[in-house]
């Protein structure tokens, strides 16, 4: 779409939205948000980018193929369940590590997997529709 205002605004917006998506992803455990919402947000950002600059630019910016992103997400989510198996707990049980000020758990990895899977799915449909 040829619109200078939209293009200029989009350049600013897309970056902001992507940063916000990461924020939403990370805050999800305690506040509204999470992997799914973050993926929708990032997907919207890329949709905006695709409308203003065209799908080729999006492909270049993302670098990885959407299918690869989705598959990585599924693999991450599935692998997040493995540590529990090694500790003789049911698959996908949340395992947490406390290390000084750091606090980290498999649910975060799982949520990251959800984020990538949904984002990959959105991107693949979006780009297929845009590449007319």
């Amino acid at each position, binding site marked *: 779409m040829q619109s200078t205002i939209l293009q200029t605004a989009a350049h600013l917006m897309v970056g902001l939205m992507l940063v916000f998506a990461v924020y939403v992803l990370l805050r*999800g*455990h*305690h*506040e*509204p*948000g*999470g*992997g*799914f*919402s973050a993926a*929708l*947000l990032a*997907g*919207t950002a890329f*949709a905006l980018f695709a*409308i203003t600059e065209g799908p080729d630019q999006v492909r270049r910016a993302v670098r990885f193929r*959407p*299918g690869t992103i*989705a*598959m990585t*997400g*599924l693999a991450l*989510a*599935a692998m*997040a*369940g493995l540590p529990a198996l090694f500790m003789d707990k049911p*698959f*996908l049980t*949340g395992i*947490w590590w406390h290390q000084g000020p750091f*606090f980290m*758990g498999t*649910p*975060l990895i*799982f*949520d990251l*997997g*959800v984020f990538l*899977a*949904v984002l*990959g*799915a*959105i991107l*693949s*449909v*979006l780009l*297929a*529709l*845009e590449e*007319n």
Partner: protein
Amino acid sequence: MKTPLPPIERVPDCCRGGLVSSILPLLLFGLLCLAWPRVVQGNIFAVQWAWVPSLDLDLAFRLDGLGLLFGLIITMTGFFVSLYASSYMAGHQQLGRFFFYLHGFMLAMLGIVLSDNLFLLFIFWEATTILSFLLIGFDHHKTAARESARQALLITGGGGLFLLMGILLLKIAGESMTISHWAASGDMIRDHALYPAVFICILMGAMTKSAQVPFHFWLPNAMTAPTPISAFLHAATMVKAGIYLLMRFHPLLGGTSLWMATLVIIGGTTALWGAIQALGPCDLKRILAYTTLMALGVLTLFLGGRTVLSLTAAATFLMVHALYKAALFLAVGSIDHQTGTRNLDHLGGLVKSMPLTALAVAAATMSMAGFPLFFGFIGKEIMYEGALAEDMFPVFATVATLFANSLMTAVAAIIFITPFMGFGRQKMDPVKEAPWTMRLGPAVMGLLGIVFGIMPEWVSAHLIQPAVFSFQPDREEIRLVFFHGINLPLVLSILTLTLGSVIYRYRTFLRHRMNTAIDRLWITTPGLYQSGLDNFLRNAGIFTNTIQNGSLHFYLFIIILTLVMAVGWVWLPHVPGILIFPVISGPLIAIGLFAFILASTGVVVFAKKRLSAIGGLGGVGAGVALTFMIFGAPDIALTQLLVETLTLIFISLVLLRLPPMDAVKKRSRSRTIRDACLSLVAGLLLTTLMMGILQVPLDRNLTAFFEANSYIAAHGRNIVNVILVDFRSLDTLGEICVVVLAAWASVTLIRRTKEG
């Protein structure tokens, strides 16, 4: 000066991948040979791991005499076929795939004969069906190959379903799923009310796999596969899986008059019908396929008996047949490979150009015809003894065996004399002998036919008896010997050879007669199969075109109509009691939102342009999201808002591809009214349903649990997210898989519409 050959003509003599991968069957054969002496002494090798204990499914393997006999046949032919294929298939595009299927099939077949758990056996059974489908249809660019593959899959796969049913019935009848536990409980099953049903189901499985009349026709058609496949699957191993099944079930189900009568009649009919039809075709491979039918029929016939004699006859003939038939198939493949044809009318005088192959074929056909000194002779003697000792219909069994064997003798003569000695109608181009990889298999197997024929006592003690003992508990010793003295079987053997030569003499006349007679048959199973399949496909087409007519409007109509009928049927009588006019209360903003959503809906319904309709939809979505926000569900509100936004973007992208609304044909008035009525009823139904649900007090048990445990157990304060990624994360994993799959499906659809 020598000019080098152009590169296209230089097809390699054999491919290295095939040679290397033949090590696998050789290795397995070696392992079985290591175990062999112990098995002969009566030892049994067994291993077992639990797999799905709740289903009685264990990874249980057991090597006994019967498993050993089959295992040796499978791995030996597997080795020769793999070696052979490395030359026969050289230069083919998809060699990797070929050898993968081939060895996969071999392993599945070994799995059948070694598994001790009935469900495990079934899994391997299905694996052979699928791999056989892939191998028959290996040249998938040919229509004939695809159709034959489908036919084999439908018939053997259907039989597999029967087998599964039989297994489940057996389980219902209280039988153990471990095969080695059966010996003790045969009487219980044979007296059980379910016995006939179990018997028929198992028999159907065996009949379809082993190509018994009336399911025989897939086997000759399967000859469209490359020759190594035909030799391996459709002569030596896969078609024997049904025979193996009957042998394994013999101690459990065998010995009743139902078993004996059915098997003898079916086996005898198959043997005769196969042998008669073998005279018909000119294609060497088809001839061999029909003789395989005969052999399978004879095996079934002998498994119908319950004496040790007839069962020994079955086990012996199994070996005889595997040796000569695999050798012949491979040799016919060599002829085809070297001359470019396997039509009897075009072949002749090959003995000069392919002397070594000719020698191997001579040995194999002599064994097939049953000349003394060959293993086939031993087999034939014991067959006549076995047939005479049948409990049911011994006369029919003997006569059927006699005729089938005579026809076999004649066919053996045709297979050897015509291509190698006779003179083809056309002058043939000079032919080269096949490479060593293609000669080794037929030569060794032909030679074994002679060696075993000279020393039958050894074969009997080391192979046949251990095999028979493992499914025939009466340890009566039947020794195969070279010469029994002058008795009825010997007379019958001589009669067979005489009758065979007479048939050979009149073969052209008989072939002609036979072909016209078969053409005149007004009902045949292949015909029934074809018309059944055609009708099925036609009706499926009609059905699909009616239901899936491509109109999104129609699909939505059907979906909503189904919902209205299914839910309304139960719910509508309750509606009057539920339907109360809501009291206007709550915050003022909620009332404003309600008005906003209503107005947006109005826009959707009455919009003249698609873009405004979409704007209306967005308004409805945003209104709903705000409602969530007011009533304290920020997480859902956030997601709803984001989904709404993204959906709008997607819809507008799709919209660009649609023709403008004015250009679309105007809907008829009646259709608009119909749609409006349906929408109103659906809306009423859902609204009252929601109202009804709200009148029941909400069960807050789960909410309380999550509220209490979310932070303690999962270190998270956002309950929704904790449920998604921790408490119910397996569900989420499944959902994201669905999301990704759905995205891929849509991408495929979008690309296809773009191309089309």
